[in-house]
């Protein structure tokens, strides 16, 4: 059964990589897409409001400066939101906020969330106000992910463009990434999560007497707003302490599968985007093949490790205590999906660097073209 899940997962990712990759290439190269009639007016409005001139091309240095300035701006804003979150309206009630958001924890969280490291070093259900989660953390899950996608576009352009000292416009890239890719996908994904049972409300915690008469506090909140973009942006910090293992964050096998797809789909598709923009489609497929091969090796190794660990446990139980049946699913409900995402990113970057270093033909990134 779990092999079927695993194979279906890989099949969907590979199947979607080509259409999504071509779509991403259109977004990157400002080619027409089916969402244009809806989004172009929003795009122009944002350009006007933010004072962005999208046609202005940036050199690698300027692009990087903008990326860093944006990161610093986001970090400061998130720091302020988290520092003063106690004064925000909305639940949960003060009585439940038992962990103080100290300056060092705030600084760690702010830096971490604005760089997609997203180290959730606190238990959300007893630390953060709903509005701090939404206005602070949900926003940063989007923006850090979009900034990453923008830099990915610039990286691909750097390799693809010949005789050009520019990589695109960072502000246009981040706005287009958000409007055409990340926000629409998150909207669909978050609605699917709500359908499966992820809560989305601003209610106070529910106090219930259990069937046996003991009091139990059930946390609430706008959980669905965070949980999908957490995976799509390969961020990782969840709404609750138990993160992806919490039944409100990841209630069913379907939500687990959606989360896994959300982590893998953009990195896999970007390989096809790379092939299109650099006019080397076969290179894109080669990169994707290597990625999938590495992923499947990793998955198999993980299954194997489970077998090894559980054989040990099984053996010990059998000798000591007559046997406890041990089984664990391959794609189980816990935080392992974060490591899968990280592995995909690391292998993607590694292969990308290896491939470009082998063929140093790109002046925009690797310096001047050799004199002829």
């Amino acid at each position, binding site marked *: 059964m779990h092999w079927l899940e695993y194979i279906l997962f890989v099949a969907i990712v590979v199947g979607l990589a080509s259409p999504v990759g071509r779509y991403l290439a259109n977004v990157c190269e400002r080619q027409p897409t089916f969402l244009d009639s809806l989004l172009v007016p929003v795009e122009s409005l944002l350009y006007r409001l933010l004072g962005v001139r999208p046609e202005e*091309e940036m050199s690698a240095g300027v692009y990087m400066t903008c990326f860093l300035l944006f990161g610093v701006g986001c970090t400061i804003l998130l720091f302020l939101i988290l520092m003063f979150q106690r004064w925000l309206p909305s639940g949960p009630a003060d009585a439940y906020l038992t962990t103080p958001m100290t300056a060092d924890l705030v600084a760690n969280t702010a830096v971490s969330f604005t760089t997609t490291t997203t180290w959730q070093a606190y238990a959300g259900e007893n630390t953060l106000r709903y509005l701090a989660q939404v*206005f602070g953390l949900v926003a940063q899950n989007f923006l850090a992910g979009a900034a990453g996608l923008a830099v990915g576009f610039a990286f691909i352009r750097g390799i693809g463009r010949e005789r050009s000292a520019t990589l695109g416009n960072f502000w246009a890239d981040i706005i287009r990434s958000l409007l055409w890719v990340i926000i629409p996908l998150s909207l669909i994904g978050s609605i699917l999560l709500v359908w499966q049972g992820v809560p989305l*409300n601003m209610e106070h*915690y529910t106090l219930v007497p259990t069937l046996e008469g003991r009091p139990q506090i059930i946390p609430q909140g706008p959980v669905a707003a965070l949980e999908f973009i957490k995976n799509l942006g390969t961020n990782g910090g969840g709404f609750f302490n138990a993160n992806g*293992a919490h039944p409100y964050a990841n209630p069913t096998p379907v939500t687990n599968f959606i989360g896994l797809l959300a982590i893998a789909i953009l990195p896999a598709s970007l390989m096809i985007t790379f092939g299109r923009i650099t006019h080397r489609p076969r290179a894109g497929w080669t990169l994707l093949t290597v990625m999938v091969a590495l992923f499947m090796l990793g998955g198999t190794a993980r299954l194997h490790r489970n077998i090894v660990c559980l054989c040990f446990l099984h053996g010990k139980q059998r000798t000591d205590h007559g046997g406890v049946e041990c089984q664990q699913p391959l794609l189980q409900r816990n935080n392992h999906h974060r490591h899968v995402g990280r592995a995909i990113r690391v292998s993607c970057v590694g292969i990308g660097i290896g491939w470009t270093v082998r063929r140093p033909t790109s002046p925009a990134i690797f310096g001047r073209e050799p004199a002829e």
Partner: protein
Amino acid sequence: MSNSNEPAEGLTGWVSPPTSCTKLADQLKSAVRATVGLTLVTGCIFPLLLFAIARPLFPRQTKGSLLMRDGDVVGSRLIGQAFTRPEYFQGRPSAAGSGYDGTASGGTSLGPNNPKLIDGSADFAGIQQLAEEYRRQNALPPTASIPIDAVTRSGSGLDPHISPENAALQVPRVARARGLNEETVSALVTEHTEGPQLGFLGKARVSVLELNLALDRLKPAAGPVKH
């Protein structure tokens, strides 16, 4: 090679970036505006849009899938409760607070080959101890095989489900405590067993709280139940 145009110092044929773009002050201004503006788009407009679409479509789910009995909330379909009495099916052991504490979700974080997980410590019941208790409660022989979910804590400490195998082992105890016959209780367990989603995603599972509510509807638990 054609040395057609600017600049002079050897950047043959390159297009130089427009100078206005390189002004740091301009970009700083854009950065401040983008930080605030895009935070509003993703931290305000996106959640509002999501609320506007999802809440009318799925009112029960957005409120946390709460379960009602006689007009009162008795729990959530997705959040497990602690059960200790023999007339109720019992969920998995829990590491959330003192057990199924909704404000302190979390697991043990002990690896499968950690001796503490198996042998326990002064204030932590290991798998051996949990297995002994489980066998005693359900009148199983000391060598009986036990499903893993009966003696391990879930990652959140709040998982609402157990395996059908675990439920089956508890059927005789629950039937005896309630004065029901085992077939009736078994049928109720089957009724509350969900198969893998779409036929292949995940595993079959039994929702403990919903099963216990159904038991109470069938025949209220003996002894006083305080509310």
